C-alpha cells in the first residue's frame, strides 16, 4: 500500500483528494458526508462579508456529448449565500470532529485591506488549516470588483495576498482564474505577495448553449442569461496546461500547486501530480455522482502506485514536467506510421475519410470480391494520429515507429529555418 498523504503548501491531508470550494462544501452536512466517504480535505465554499449574496433560480448549464452527460458544466452561482457566522460555526465543528483532514477556507471580500483583515480575523479561530483567496470567479462577483477582477490584474493579486499574509500565519493558497493570457504572471504575483501556493484553475468564462426558442443563453433566467464559469471534464486539458506552465517556469517551479479542473478519477489526479501538483481538488464529478467516487480515486491511485513502485506522491510528483518542451526542440527525425489491424477492423471507413478529406490521403480503400479493406500508404502517412482517433475500435489502429531511433534533429538547426543555428 502506497502512502497517499500529501502536503500542499504546509497543509497536510491523508490523501490528495480535496473537494473544491463549491456547493458540495457549503455546509457541515455535506462536508461530514464527504469526510465519511474518505475525502482528504475540503476547501470551504467561499465566504464573504454579510449580508450574504443572493442567488438566482436556474443556475447551471451543461454540455452533454455523445450520450455522456455533463462533459462540460457551467454555473452562474455566487459565493456562499449563508450568513458568515453560520459558516464559521460549521467550520469550527468540522475541524474539531475531523482533525486529520484538511479544512481550507475560501475567501472573497471587497478589495480593501480593512475587509481582508476583518475576514481573516473571523476565520482564524475556526481552527482551519489554511485559506484560499478566491481571485477566480468570472461571473457576478467580478462585476463588483472581486473574484477574477482581482485575478486578472497581477498587481492586485500581489497586493491582496500581501495584506492577507501580513495578518495571518495560516498557509495561503491563491486561486487563479484561467481567463488571462498568461497564467505565469498571476502565479508570479501570488508568489511575490507571499502566497504559499496557488490553486488553479477556477472556471472558464463561457456560454454553454443558446435556447433557440427563447433566443437566450442557457441557463435562462426569466428570458435572459449571463456568462458563467465553465468546468468539468471538458476543461481538464486547459487546467493541465496551466499547471504545467507554472510547474515549469523558473520563477514558480517550486511554488506548491493545488490542481483543479475536470478531475474526475485517480488517473486525472495522477496526471496533474506528474505535472507537479501537490494535491488536487474536485467538484463537477462529485456534483454528478456524489462523494462515493473518492473510493476509486484512493484505491485506483494506490493500486497504480504499487504497480509502478511509487511509495509516496513525491516519488512521481513533477516527473513529467521535464518532458514538456518547446516545439522547436521536438525531434523532427522521429517518424511513426499508422497500422491497421485487419483482424479487428469493422470496415467503417472513418480512417479513410478523415485522412482523405482532412489529412494526407494516406489510407486507400481496396475493394475485393464485394468486401473492402483499408491500407496505409506509408510514403503519404505523416503520422498525425487522426485515423487512430477517428477509429471507433480500440487498438485497431496503432502507430508504429519506423525511424532508426538514433537520429535527432530539431527546428533550431533545420535547413528550412531561416533563423537556424549553424551546427558546429
Amino acid at each position, binding site marked *: 500500500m502506497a502512502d497517499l498523504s500529501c502536503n500542499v503548501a504546509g497543509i497536510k491531508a491523508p490523501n490528495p483528494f480535496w473537494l473544491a470550494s463549491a456547493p458540495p462544501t457549503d455546509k457541515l452536512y455535506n462536508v461530514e458526508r464527504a469526510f465519511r466517504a474518505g475525502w482528504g480535505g475540503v476547501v470551504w465554499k467561499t465566504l464573504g462579508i454579510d449580508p450574504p449574496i443572493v442567488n438566482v433560480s436556474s443556475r447551471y448549464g451543461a454540455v452533454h456529448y455523445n450520450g*455522456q452527460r455533463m462533459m462540460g458544466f457551467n454555473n452562474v452561482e455566487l459565493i456562499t449565500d449563508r450568513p458568515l457566522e453560520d459558516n464559521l460555526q460549521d467550520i469550527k465543528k468540522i475541524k474539531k470532529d475531523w482533525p486529520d483532514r484538511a479544512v481550507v477556507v475560501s475567501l472573497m471580500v471587497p478589495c480593501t485591506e480593512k475587509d481582508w483583515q476583518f475576514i481573516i480575523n473571523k476565520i482564524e479561530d475556526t481552527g482551519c488549516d489554511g485559506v484560499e483567496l478566491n481571485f477566480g470567479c468570472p461571473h457576478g462577483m467580478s462585476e463588483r470588483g472581486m473574484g477574477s477582477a482581482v485575478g486578472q490584474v497581477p498587481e492586485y493579486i500581489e497586493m491582496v495576498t500581501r495584506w492577507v499574509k501580513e495578518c495571518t500565519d495560516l498557509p495561503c493558497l491563491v486561486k487563479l482564474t484561467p481567463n488571462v493570457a498568461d497564467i505565469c504572471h498571476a502565479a508570479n504575483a501570488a508568489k511575490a505577495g507571499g502566497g504559499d501556493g496557488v490553486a488553479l484553475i477556477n472556471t472558464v468564462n463561457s456560454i454553454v448553449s443558446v435556447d433557440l426558442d427563447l433566443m437566450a443563453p442557457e441557463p435562462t433566467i426569466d428570458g435572459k442569461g449571463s456568462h458563467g464559469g465553465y468546468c468539468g471534464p471538458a476543461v481538464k486539458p486547459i487546467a493541465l496546461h496551466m499547471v504545467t506552465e507554472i510547474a515549469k517556469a523558473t520563477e514558480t517551479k517550486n511554488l506548491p500547486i493545488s490542481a483543479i479542473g475536470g478531475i474526475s*478519477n*485517480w*488517473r486525472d489526479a495522477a496526471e496533474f501530480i506528474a505535472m507537479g501538483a501537490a494535491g488536487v481538488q474536485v467538484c463537477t464529478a462529485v456534483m454528478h*455522482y*456524489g462523494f*462515493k*467516487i473518492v*473510493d*476509486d480515486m484512493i*484505491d*485506483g491511485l494506490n*493500486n*497504480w502506485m504499487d504497480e509502478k513502485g511509487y511509495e509516496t506522491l513525491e516519488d512521481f510528483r513533477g516527473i513529467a514536467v521535464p518532458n514538456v518542451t518547446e516545439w522547436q526542440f521536438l525531434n523532427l527525425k522521429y517518424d511513426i506510421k499508422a497500422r491497421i489491424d485487419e483482424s479487428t477492423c469493422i470496415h467503417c471507413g472513418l480512417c479513410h475519410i478523415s485522412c482523405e478529406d482532412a489529412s494526407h490521403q494516406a489510407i486507400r480503400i481496396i475493394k475485393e470480391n464485394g468486401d473492402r479493406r483499408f491500407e496505409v500508404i506509408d510514403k503519404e502517412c505523416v503520422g498525425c494520429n487522426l485515423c487512430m482517433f477517428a477509429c471507433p*475500435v*480500440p*487498438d485497431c489502429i496503432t502507430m508504429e515507429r519506423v525511424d532508426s531511433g538514433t537520429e535527432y534533429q530539431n527546428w533550431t538547426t533545420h535547413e528550412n529555418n531561416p533563423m537556424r543555428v549553424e551546427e558546429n
Partner: protein
Amino acid sequence: MTTIDVQAGRLSQEQLSENFSDAHPPLNSGNAIVEANRCYFCFDAPCIDACPTAIDIPNFIRKISTGNLKGSARDIFSQNIMGGMCARVCPTETLCEGACVRETQDHQPVRIGELQRYATDSYLETSETFFERAESSGKKIAVVGGGPAGLSCAHRLAVLGHHAVVFEAREKLSGLNEYGIAAYKTVNDFAQREVDFILKIGGIEIRTNQRLGQDVKLEDLRQEFDAVFLSVGLGDVNSLGLESEEIAGVYDAVDTILELRQSVNLAELSVGRRVIVIGGGSTAIDIAVQSKKLGAEDVTLAYRRGPEQMNATWKEQEFAQTNGVRVKHWVAPKSLRSENGHVTGIEFECMELNPEGKLRGTGEFRHMEADVVFKAIGQLLEDSVFSGSEMPAIEGGKINVNLEFETSLPGVWAGGDCVGSGEDLTVQSVEDGKQAALSIHRRLK
C-alpha cells in the same frame, strides 16, 4: 418395431469443440470500457439489492472505466469469493441486470455479468489473492460439502483466522460448478482454477472422497470440531412417479450432465436421436441444449405449465430455443412406452389451469417418440447423509435454519441448496456460506 437410435460420435470433433466452446465469449478491454461507461453509477443502486451477495456493482464498474481493474476485482471478491463463476452462471436477467435502471429505461441493461467476468478474469490471471488470514483463532470447523456454499464458508472462516476442514464426497471440489453446470458456461476448467484461487489463502484443509453418513458421521464431527457447517446440497432426484421408470434410455439429467462435464472426449458420449427432457428449470435447459450440441436431431423440453411458470428464466428458455430445442408447454407425462426394455416414447396429457388457477389435465393426450428421456424435475436432500447420527430438523424437504444459518442441532450450521434460504443458485450458496461463517465466528468468539 421402432428403431432405437442412441449412438456416440454424431458430430465431428471440430463441430463438438465449437459447440462446447464458451457460450458467451469474454469482453475485450475496449468493449469493457464502453460497456462500463454505460453504467450511471446509481446511488444506492437497485442492482446491489438484487445481488444475493450484495456486490457494490456501480463501484466495481466505475473501477473498470478508470482502469483500476485490481480494485474492481477486490470489490467483487470481497463480497463474493466465487465472483468469477457467478459472472458466468448467474441468471443476471432476473438478478442484477433485471434490476438495472437501464432495463427500466430502455430494456438494455448494463451487461453486469460480462463486466464482472472481465474484472475477475483479469485478476485471476495474476495468480494473486487479496486475502490474508487473521491471526489463528485455534478453532477448527468442519465444512461438509465442497460446493459453493462450503468453499465460501471455508474461505471466510480462513479469513477470520479459523481452521476449516472441508469434507467432500466426490473427487473434486466445487460441487455443481464442477459436476452440474453445462460445459459451455464454464470452459477451460474454470471451476478448478477458481478452487485454486479460493484455497490460496491457506488454512483450509481438504479431504475428498468423504461422504457424510458413509465415510464420516455427523455425530463424530460434532465431537471433534468446534462447529460444523453442512453444505451437502441435494443428492437425490425427484422421480416422475410413472411405472417402470428404471427402463433403459430414461436418465436423471444430473447424472448425464456430470458424465458430460467429466468426459475427456465428447465424441464418445452416446446421445439419442430424439430426446425428451421433462422439467422446466436450469438443469432441464442445460441437458436439452447439451443434447442438441452433442448432435441429437430432435430435442423437446416438455413442461407441464407455461413459460411464465418455468424456473428457467426467459433468457435461458430463449437460449434453448435458439439452440434448436423445441419447448412444449402444458404437457405432463402419463406413461412411458418401451420395447425390449428400452424407452421408445412418452404419452403426455395436455394440461390447463382450472378457473381457480389450479393445474388439471384436459383429457387430451399426445404421444411423442423418444430414444432417450431425461428427468429434470428437481433434486432432494439425501436422507442417508444423517445415517447413524441425530438429524437436524427438516422443513419442506430441506434442513431448517434460522437467520443465523443455525440448524436445530447445537453447533451445526447449514447453507446452500440443502437449506431453503432462497433460490438454488450458486450466488445464493456463496452468500449462505459467507453468512454462516460470520455467524460461526460470532458464536466462537
